[in-house]
C-alpha cells in the first residue's frame, strides 16, 4: 500500500514534450506492474512560456482508492524523485504565475533522489542547489541539455536515459522490466530500449548530506489578505528609479523585489566594457529593463532582473561586445561592472575564456527559426 510521486522540472515549451514523454511512460509502465497512475502538468505553468520553469508530475499508487488523494491537486506536496532536465534550474525556479523562488529539491522527500541531466560534476551542482535539512541522493545523467520547440522534438533519447535512471533509483515506483516492455511497445525502437537499459546500468547516486549546498535563503513573498489588499483590483505603480545604486549620476530603475524572473535564464549576457560604444541599444531594447546605467555611462546587466532572452546580444552593433554564455558557468548574480572596475585585466581574462568556451558549447535558446533543428544536426555531424 503506497503512493509514489515523481516531478519533472523543465524549461517551458523547449522541454515540454520531453517532460510529457517521461511522465506518461512512468504511468504506462506502472500499469504493467499492476499499479494505477495519473500524469499532469502544473496548471499555473500553462500556457507555457519559452524557457520559464515548469513542472509535470507522475503519481502512481497500488490502488485507485489510494490514488484519489493525489487527484485534484496542482502540485504534489512531496515527491520520491525530482527529475531536473536542465541543470541551470538547480539554482531554483520561479514560475511565471507564482511568487518566490522554489529550490529544485523543495519537494524531494527525505531519502529521495534528485536526478539531473548535466555536464557538470556533483560538487559543482551542489554548490547551486539549496541546502535541505534532510539527506537525499543525487544522480547525474551526463548529458547536454535537450532543448527543442513547441512543434518539434529533439528525439535524442534524453527521455529514455532519464527513465532508465529512474528505474534504478526508485524500483519501487516502476520496475525496469515493465519500463523496457513499455518503451518497446510505445516506440518499437531497439535503440531506445538499449539507451534505457544502459542508463539504468550506469546510474550511480551520490548522497547529499543535510546542510550541504547553497546556503542562500530563496526570495519569497507574503500574499496579502482580503482585508489588506487594495479594493477594485488596483495595483500601485512601482517608483520611478533614480541615480545608479542611489547615487547622483547614472540610473537604476525600481524593480519588483518579489517577482524577479531570473530563473527563466539558461544563458546570460557577458559584457565587454572595453569595447562598448555606449550606443544605448541594449538598454533601450531590453524587455525587462535589466540594464543599470553606470556613472561612467556604461550598461551593467543586472542579473537579478535579466531573464536571458538574448535581445541585447542581437542588437549590439559591436562584435563580441555582448555574448550570451551558458548559466552553468556562473554561481552568483554579482555585477560584472563591479568586477571590471575592480580589476580590468582580470575581468578581460575571465571574459575571454568564457566567450571562447561559449563558441564551442551547444546550449542554445531553442530554435529561433524554422529549420533550426536541421541546422543544429548538420553542425553536430560536421563537428
Amino acid at each position, binding site marked *: 500500500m503506497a503512493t509514489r510521486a515523481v516531478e519533472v522540472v523543465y524549461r517551458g515549451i523547449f522541454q515540454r514534450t520531453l517532460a510529457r514523454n517521461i511522465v506518461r511512460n512512468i*504511468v504506462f509502465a506502472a500499469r504493467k506492474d499492476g499499479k494505477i497512475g495519473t500524469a*499532469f502538468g502544473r496548471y499555473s505553468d500553462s500556457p507555457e512560456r519559452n524557457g520559464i520553469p515548469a513542472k509535470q508530475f507522475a503519481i502512481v499508487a497500488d490502488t485507485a482508492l489510494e490514488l484519489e488523494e493525489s487527484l485534484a491537486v496542482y502540485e504534489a506536496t512531496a515527491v520520491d524523485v525530482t527529475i531536473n532536465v536542465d541543470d541551470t534550474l538547480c539554482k531554483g525556479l520561479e514560475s511565471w504565475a507564482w511568487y518566490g523562488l522554489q529550490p529544485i529539491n523543495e519537494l524531494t522527500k527525505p531519502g529521495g533522489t534528485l536526478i539531473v541531466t548535466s555536464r557538470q560534476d556533483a560538487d559543482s551542482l551542489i554548490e547551486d542547489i539549496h541546502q535541505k535539512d534532510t539527506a537525499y541522493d543525487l544522480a547525474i545523467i551526463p548529458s547536454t541539455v535537450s532543448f527543442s520547440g513547441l512543434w518539434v522534438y529533439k528525439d535524442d533519447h534524453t527521455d529514455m536515459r532519464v527513465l532508465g535512471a529512474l528505474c534504478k533509483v526508485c524500483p519501487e515506483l516502476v520496475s525496469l522490466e515493465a519500463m523496457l516492455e513499455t518503451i518497446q511497445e510505445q516506440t518499437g525502437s531497439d535503440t531506445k530500449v538499449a539507451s534505457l537499459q544502459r542508463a539504468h546500468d550506469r546510474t550511480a547516486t551520490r548522497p547529499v548530506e543535510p546542510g550541504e549546498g547553497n546556503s542562500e535563503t530563496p526570495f519569497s513573498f507574503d500574499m496579502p489578505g482580503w482585508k489588506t489588499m487594495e479594493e477594485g483590483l488596483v495595483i500601485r505603480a512601482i517608483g520611478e528609479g533614480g541615480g545608479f545604486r542611489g547615487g547622483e549620476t547614472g540610473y537604476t530603475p525600481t524593480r519588483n523585489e518579489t517577482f524577479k524572473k531570473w530563473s527563466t535564464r539558461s544563458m546570460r549576457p557577458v559584457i565587454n566594457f572595453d569595447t562598448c560604444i555606449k550606443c544605448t541599444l541594449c538598454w533601450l531594447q531590453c524587455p525587462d529593463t535589466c540594464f543599470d546605467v553606470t556613472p561612467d555611462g556604461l550598461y551593467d546587466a543586472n542579473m537579478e532582473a535579466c531573464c536571458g532572452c538574448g535581445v541585447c546580444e542581437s542588437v549590439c552593433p559591436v562584435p563580441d561586445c555582448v555574448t550570451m554564455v551558458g548559466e552553468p558557468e556562473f554561481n552568483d548574480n554579482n555585477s560584472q561592472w563591479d568586477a571590471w572596475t575592480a580589476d580590468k585585466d582580470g575581468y578581460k581574462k575571465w571574459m575571454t575564456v568564457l566567450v571562447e568556451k561559449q563558441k564551442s558549447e551547444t546550449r542554445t535558446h531553442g530554435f529561433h527559426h524554422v529549420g533550426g533543428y536541421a541546422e543544429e544536426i548538420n553542425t553536430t555531424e560536421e563537428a
Partner: protein
Amino acid sequence: MATVQSGLYQEAKEELISGSEAVGIACALADVDVITAYPIRPYDTVMQYVSRLKADGAFDCDFIVAESEHSQFEIVKHASAVGARTFSGSSGVGWFYAFEAITVTAGLRMPVVAMVGNRALDDPGAFGVEHNDAMAVRDLGWHLYWVATAQEALDMALMAWRVAEDPRVLLPFALSCDGSFLTHSQAIVQVPSQDQVKKFLPPYTRGELQLHPNNPITIAPQVNEDWLMEIRRQTDEAMRRTSAVIIEAYDEFKEIFGRGDPSPFIEEYMCEDAEIILVGMGTLAMPTRVAVRRMREAGKKVGFLRIKFFRPFATEEIQNALRGAKGVAVIDRDYSYGSPQYGGVLFHELRSALYPLEERPLMLNFIAGLGGREVKVTDVNDMVDTTQKAIDTGKIEQTTTWVSVRE
C-alpha cells in the same frame, strides 16, 4: 451525415488521457457532425484534441473555428435545427459572451451538447475552476451535469447526446468539467468500441421539427406576451420529462458498457447511517471522499453526497439521501453575492429542496476552492468539525464560512 473514416476505436481500449481528451474521443465515437470552437482556457484543450482526431481520420465532421463564442453557439444551434449532431463549448467569460445564443438554444429545443471547462469569471483573468460560469444556465432549460473524473467525462458525453436528442426531451446539455483537475490531468480511461457506442446512441432525428426544404417550416418567429407563457411551459414540460429519459438511458448505458453508479443523478458515498453529510460537485469529490474515508476509519459517522445533475435537480433522491443526517455541510465552488444566506448557489438549492422535510438537518455552507484554490483533506475535516459543533450545541453560529481565505 458524416461517416466514420478509419475507426481508431474499433476495439475497446485503455487510454491515458485528460478529461478534455475523453470528451474529444466521445465526439469521435458519437460521430458528431458539426463542432464549433473558439479558444479559451481550459476548454480549448478539447478543441485541440477534436481537431487532431479529425486530422487523424478518427471521424469526419465540420470543424468550424468561429470568430467568437457568440458565433460558435449560433452555428451549432442552426446546425442542430437541420438535424446535425453538434458539440461546442467554452469557459468562464467566453461562455458568457455566447449567452444570447445559449439562452435561445433551449427555447428552440436544440439538443446541442457543450462542454464547459469551468473557469473563474473575470476579472482577474484567473484560469482556475469556479462553478459560476456553468451555473448561469441553470434557469434556461439546459441540462447541467458536473463531472468528477475523465472516465465520467467520456461516459456522460455519450449520455448527453442520447438524452438531449431524445424526441421526448430535445433540450441542450452542458457538461461541466473542472478546469485543470479534469481538463488537464491525465488518467486511465476505458474507451468503449465504436460498436458499443452505436448500440447505445441512435442517430439524431428531429422528425417534423427538422429544418429542411422537404419540410418547409419557420423557426422562432417574433411573438409577444400572448404566446410566451405557453412556450415557457413547453420547455418546462420537456425538462420534467427528461428525468425518466435519463434513468432509462443510464440503465441501458450500464448494461452496454458495464459501468456506472446506482443513480445517474447523485453519488452517495458512505452516506448510510451518516450523521454528517458533506455535499459538493465535480472534482471536490477527490479530497472529500479521502477525508470521509479517514474519518470513517476513526469511527466518525460522515458521508459525502455528490450532486451530478444540477439540472434536472433530483429533489426526491436528494431528500432521501439527506433526510437521516443531523448536519449537512454544503461545499460551494461558486458564490451568489447578496443571496438569502450570503452563500453559494448549491447551498440555497439544497435548503429549498429540504424545506418540506418534517425533520430538517442543520445546514451549513462552506465556500471553498474559488478560482481553483485547492480544497485539501484538512479543509474538509475542519468543515466536519464546524458542523459537529453546530449539532452538539444545537446552534449555527455562522451559516456561511469562507474556507482558507486570507484575512
